[in-house]
């Protein structure tokens, strides 16, 4: 591969690489843009005062239909739930918590996962042996079993949710960073630095980790999607976010009871989850093909 590349005149090669980069950068940009817009929206919109109070119950106006159905009004554009709370306001405010859980949930999985993966992939030896076994054992346990085990002893709360996300998410990340660190370790520039007298911690921190950043960002992005789906499932079962806190998952739980009478209560938060997770997955895929050092040698 390199041999072939070396024969391409520099200018052409640089031109070609630059064009490919620009193309990938645009697709990443157009996927990230709506996500950022959604995040800004759910943060800013409640401050403007345009929305109803999401926790204001109105027992005279329960299960009001959305504006585009018969009997709907602009007072509650997406209708109301069984307590007469405004679905649109709940959707926006719930989005804050859901996106926050997605972000933090990804961070708590990626952090330890990366650390363990790099350590195992770079040090090899018995560290690697132990870690590989742990990863296997972890991946053999379906996430729901871990969630059940933790929640049954800890009860459900936001910190417990993050604990579950960390415990279920680290292994997948560790597996990828381990294999990338392993290939980086064999690269000649690492040998060259060692020959120049660089210490191992220096090589790892200044050369291996920076070359992993792209991969870590991509994995973290995909993990946001997973975290949002886990949050919605656990909250739906009453094991994650519980009222009075509002998240998209908790909204689905309250919509379940009235599904046959008021479809809109469960439909809108479900759509919101699907759209956000889809965008996040597309973005993560785009970043992953962009940054995988094994797919792109130069």
């Amino acid at each position: 591969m390199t041999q072939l590349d070396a024969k391409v005149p520099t200018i052409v090669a640089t031109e070609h690489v630059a064009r490919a980069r620009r193309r990938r950068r645009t697709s990443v940009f157009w996927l990230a843009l709506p996500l950022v817009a959604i995040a800004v929206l759910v943060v800013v919109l409640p401050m403007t005062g345009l929305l109803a109070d999401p926790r204001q119950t109105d027992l005279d106006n329960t299960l009001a239909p959305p504006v585009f159905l018969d009997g709907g009004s602009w007072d509650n554009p997406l209708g109301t739930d069984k307590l007469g709370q405004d679905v649109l306001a709940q959707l926006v405010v719930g989005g804050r918590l859901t996106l926050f859980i997605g972000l933090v949930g990804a961070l708590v999985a990626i952090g330890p996962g990366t650390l363990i993966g790099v350590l195992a992939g770079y040090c090899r030896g018995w560290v690697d042996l132990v870690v590989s076994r742990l990863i296997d054992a972890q991946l053999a346990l379906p996430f729901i079993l871990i969630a059940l085990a933790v929640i049954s002893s800890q009860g459900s709360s936001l910190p417990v949710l993050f604990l579950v996300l960390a415990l279920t998410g680290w292994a997948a990340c560790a597996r990828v960073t381990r294999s990338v660190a392993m290939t980086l370790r064999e690269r000649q520039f690492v040998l060259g630095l060692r020959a120049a007298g660089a210490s191992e911690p220096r090589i790892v921190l200044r050369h291996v980790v920076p070359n992993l950043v792209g991969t870590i960002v991509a994995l973290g992005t995909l993990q946001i999607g997973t975290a949002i789906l886990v949050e919605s499932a656990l909250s739906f079962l009453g094991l994650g976010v519980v009222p009075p806190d509002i998240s998209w998952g908790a909204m689905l739980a309250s919509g379940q009871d009235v599904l046959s009478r008021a479809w809109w209560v469960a439909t809108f938060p479900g759509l919101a989850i699907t759209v956000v997770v889809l965008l996040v997955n597309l973005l993560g895929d785009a970043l992953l093909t962009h940054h995988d050092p094994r797919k792109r040698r130069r």
Partner: protein
Amino acid sequence: MSRVLVRKGLRHLGAALITLWLAVTMAFALGRLSGDPTSNILGPMATPEQRDALQAQLGLDQSLVVQYLDYLKGIVTLDFGTSLQFYQPNLDMILDRLPFTLQLVGAGMAIAVAIGVPLGVLAATREGTWWDRTASALALLGQSVPVFWLGMMLILLFAVRLGWLPAGQSGSWQHLVLPAVTMSLYPMAHVARLTRASMSEVLREPYIDSARARGLRVRSVVWRHGFGNASAPVLTIVVLQAGALLSGAVAVEYVYSWPGLGQLALQAIQFRDFPLVQAIVVFGAITFVVLNQLVDMLHVAIDPRLR
């Protein structure tokens, strides 16, 4: 050759036992994170006497090492303890509910494979076309939808609006349709994506061209040579997805009031039936480690390159 297989088998068995032990130990450690589950079981209003009694009943008054050894002994002798709310052996209840969950997982997996594999092959043989893009988009969508929400939407459409199928509970085959279809979506997406990737890699191999050059029909080349060689990773994912499927099963069983293991687990958590939850977790962990190892061994048996 057979001696090599036996040696491989023994090594796999050793690795499986270690993984099993680690998984079971993880389940134990996770359950003991708080130190004392009784406060969570009894709630804040419990008297110290009640707490002591429960601790004695669960063996929690002993040292962690003794608890851990008892726990391992229970697993080896298939003694999974007794439920706090039903006063029945946990294993009996699990085995009662297991067929329902297996039914759901089996039917879901069957649908996933029956649709996902042809979808993936279709996309791979028509790489870059409209077919390919649609299949890939569908697969990505399938991985982004919360399964239980999809279940709710299916109920809304087929049970509430159209009235074609029952919305919940079990009994006839009609009851199985909606939950099985719901369950199948996520693994279907996965199977389709993987089949496509694995197939398009195999189809680029020279032996495909040479089979074509020998005058074999395109369809038989694709299925016999192409899919035959692409099927190993697909098989892996089918079995591994069973784990993800169980995770989905809990929420899906809840949506459809399906009386499987997932419902039992939810009940156990709601009533803080700590021994039952632990029994379900350990049972699930053992099942999946065994499944994983079976896949590994199956691979060695199928793929001559791994010997």
